[in-house]
């Protein structure tokens, strides 16, 4: 049993570190460090730098412009990115729709869509959840009715992340009402400029419209935009969901935030002449977080090792999702605790790109409460943690 990287993997790790230090733009690094939100241009710029290096799509096969890396190398890459604070690609194109197109799309669809995803020329968003289809996604109602060479789409999608930037949306739509709910769903690609689509921002607890509702009113979609076969969409989406869970545990980001917690704790006075890092109770909880992070990291490595010998990802990814998100939320609480009164000012513009005013209070603290509020989403989205526990009870425990 060993958890060591090979010499080649270690060399690769060094290469990634050097690349990040040299190529991750300093202005973006400054924004990430100050919790300033990256805008679309920032994210696209970084993606194009990765593309130039040939590293835009670590998980794609070589034939589509991917890296062809082993699972371990992909892991090393994601780890170094997370530790450095370089953002992962927005997953909707790269990690969510592209694998579906590769697996089930036609040759024409592959040529039409994949290169623009790889080069970050086109921004994708996700059309899965609906107001009445959340955890029970298969009960979705947005209907696509075939008329000649077109589908006519009516309905609405919600929790559409960053759809305000999107050029295209991939949707699960209902194409058959007469069968079991999972069997009447199709996977459809829709150009966001199509007449009949309206998008309504949803402001979340941190004051930012991170998600949207998307309405479809007689939206006519060319039938050639259907992926695979009609009524097989659920199968495609499900396969995708188990495969896109790499790096879901967020260990590198967790390590980076733990470091930040320790640094801020060292700089924060406890009101009695010592620092919060010297505060026995805080120190103990910090240690508990660190220990949990180690247990999570080794659980992830075990999953990775299984993948490396060709085992399909199983319900273990549910463990990583649950523990990873709940640990991140614990850290959010500790950032709030450290910030104390300093996280109370609600000045959302100071986290927007281009803000050059004078922030209230120390910069490290200002975003703590807003991040705490916003990250409550972690245990809700991507299959809520209740759904993940259901998966474990059914698939692992056989209950």
């Amino acid at each position, binding site marked *: 049993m060993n958890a060591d990287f090979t010499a080649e993997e270690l060399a690769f790790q060094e290469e990634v570190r050097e690349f990040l230090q040299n190529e991750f733009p300093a202005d973006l690094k400054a924004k990430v460090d100050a919790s300033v939100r990256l805008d679309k241009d920032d994210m696209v710029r970084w993606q194009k730098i990765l593309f130039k290096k040939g590293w835009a799509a670590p998980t794609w096969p070589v034939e589509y412009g991917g890296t062809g890396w082993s699972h371990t190398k992909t892991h090393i890459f994601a780890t170094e990115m997370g530790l450095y604070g370089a953002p992962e690609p927005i997953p909707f194109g790269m990690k969510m729709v592209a694998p579906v197109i590769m697996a089930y799309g036609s040759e024409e669809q592959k040529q039409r869509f994949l290169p623009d995803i790889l080069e970050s020329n086109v921004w994708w968003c996700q059309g899965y959840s609906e107001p009445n289809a959340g955890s029970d996604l298969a009960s979705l109602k947005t209907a696509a009715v075939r008329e000649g060479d077109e589908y006519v789409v009516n309905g609405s999608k919600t929790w559409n992340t960053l759809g305000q930037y999107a050029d295209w949306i991939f949707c699960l739509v209902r194409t058959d009402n007469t069968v079991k709910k999972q069997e009447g769903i199709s996977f459809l690609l829709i150009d966001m400029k199509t007449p009949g689509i309206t998008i309504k921002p*949803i402001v979340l607890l941190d004051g930012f419209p991170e998600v949207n509702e998307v309405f479809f009113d007689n939206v006519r979609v060319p039938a050639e935009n259907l992926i695979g076969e009609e009524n097989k969409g659920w199968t495609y989406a499900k396969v995708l969901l188990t495969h896109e869970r790499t790096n879901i545990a967020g260990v590198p980001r967790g390590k980076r935030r733990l470091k930040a917690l320790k640094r801020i704790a060292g700089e*924060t006075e406890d009101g*009695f002449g010592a620092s919060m890092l010297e505060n026995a109770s805080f120190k103990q909880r910090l240690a508990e977080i660190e220990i949990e992070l180690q247990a999570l990291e080794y659980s992830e490595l075990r999953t990775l090792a299984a993948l490396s010998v060709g085992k399909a990802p199983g319900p273990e990814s549910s463990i990583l999702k649950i523990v990873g998100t709940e640990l991140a939320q614990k850290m959010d609480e500790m950032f709030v605790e450290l910030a104390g009164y300093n996280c109370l*000012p609600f000045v959302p513009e100071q986290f927007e790109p281009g803000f050059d005013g004078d922030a209230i*209070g120390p910069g490290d603290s200002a975003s703590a*409460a807003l991040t*705490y509020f916003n990250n*409550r989403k972690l245990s*809700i989205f991507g299959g809520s943690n209740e759904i993940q526990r259901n998966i474990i009870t059914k698939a692992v425990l056989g209950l």
Partner: protein
Amino acid sequence: MDFSYTEVQQMLQDSVQKFVQKSYDFDTRNKIIGSETGYSADNWQLFAELGWLAVPFSEEDGGLGGSAVDLMVIMEEFGKANLVEPYTATAVLGGSLVANLATGEQKETLLGGIIGGELQIAPALAEPNGRYNPASVATTATADGDQIILNGTKIAVENGPNANTLLVSARESGEIRDVEGISVFAVEAGSPGVKIRKYRTVDGKQAAEVTLDHVSVAASNRLGDAGAALPGIESALNRSIVAVSAEAVGALEVLLQKTVEYSKTRKQFGTAIGTFQALQHRMADMFIQCQLARSIVIMAAMSLDSDDSSVEKAKAVAAAKSRVGKAIKSVGQEAIQIHGGIAMTEELDVGHLFKRVTALDLAYGDGDYHTQRFAAL
């Protein structure tokens, strides 16, 4: 033994409930938050007329008795409505500082203004490096003839943007955390050298960062004796902690109630999610948390109203804030989780209550601070 409200307390509760039901729904609250001052002056006048602004004060101070249990009754209802009017800042913390420290004409004028609804107070106690320790005062007060010169920075000054009068703790002698040497001064908000940087808080209230740059006040603006304010500050904070804890109890109760209601109507997998045992048990736990929080706040309020020693009172209050903090985290987070995505939006009041209780958790010291305070007392 009897934990029921007196007839008078019952009437007080009815009166606050009636106001809240009639004039303080979610939309109205949002409008008030979005207004210039961030609170309703009309509501404030009504609070004065109904006598609510007199509740925290003893009869000899012109109030209605000053019982902490009475205060708890009001604050719990305010918490349920997520009310943003600066009741705690002006009437509870501000008012108690005046009641505990001021004397003679000064006391009469300030309390008269508070009770009459004409005066808005902003207690300015916390400092950038002081965390929640009221003795950690770096702001200086230096005598200059008949005048006192104030220099320093105060953070998280609730009601700072709307206050006529700031009550500023400042050090006249000693080292930064010395118990002796602290005084409280009444400072007019418009005085030269007072800079009020106002902001809205994450939970929709009004606060400010206040810098005092050679602010000159008359020595008669000092509340009480020079350098002897800390016990009065601590006692005022104890009362305020009971107030915000009771407010949290009210808010948590609504969070529980709304979560249970939602779980009965929200259907997934063909059935109401409230039929899932996994969720039922968690809502049962939320209920337990609410009950324990309520119990310990009652305990603390009764202690303040009793002949307990000041140490016993401080301990009861620390216990309450510590335990309520725990309930805030678990009930608040579960309310969001069980609602799911919808509670992450600004459109539902659940998220606003969650933000409010999170801020209440920090108010006058978070749970961990008060657990340690409890252990040290």
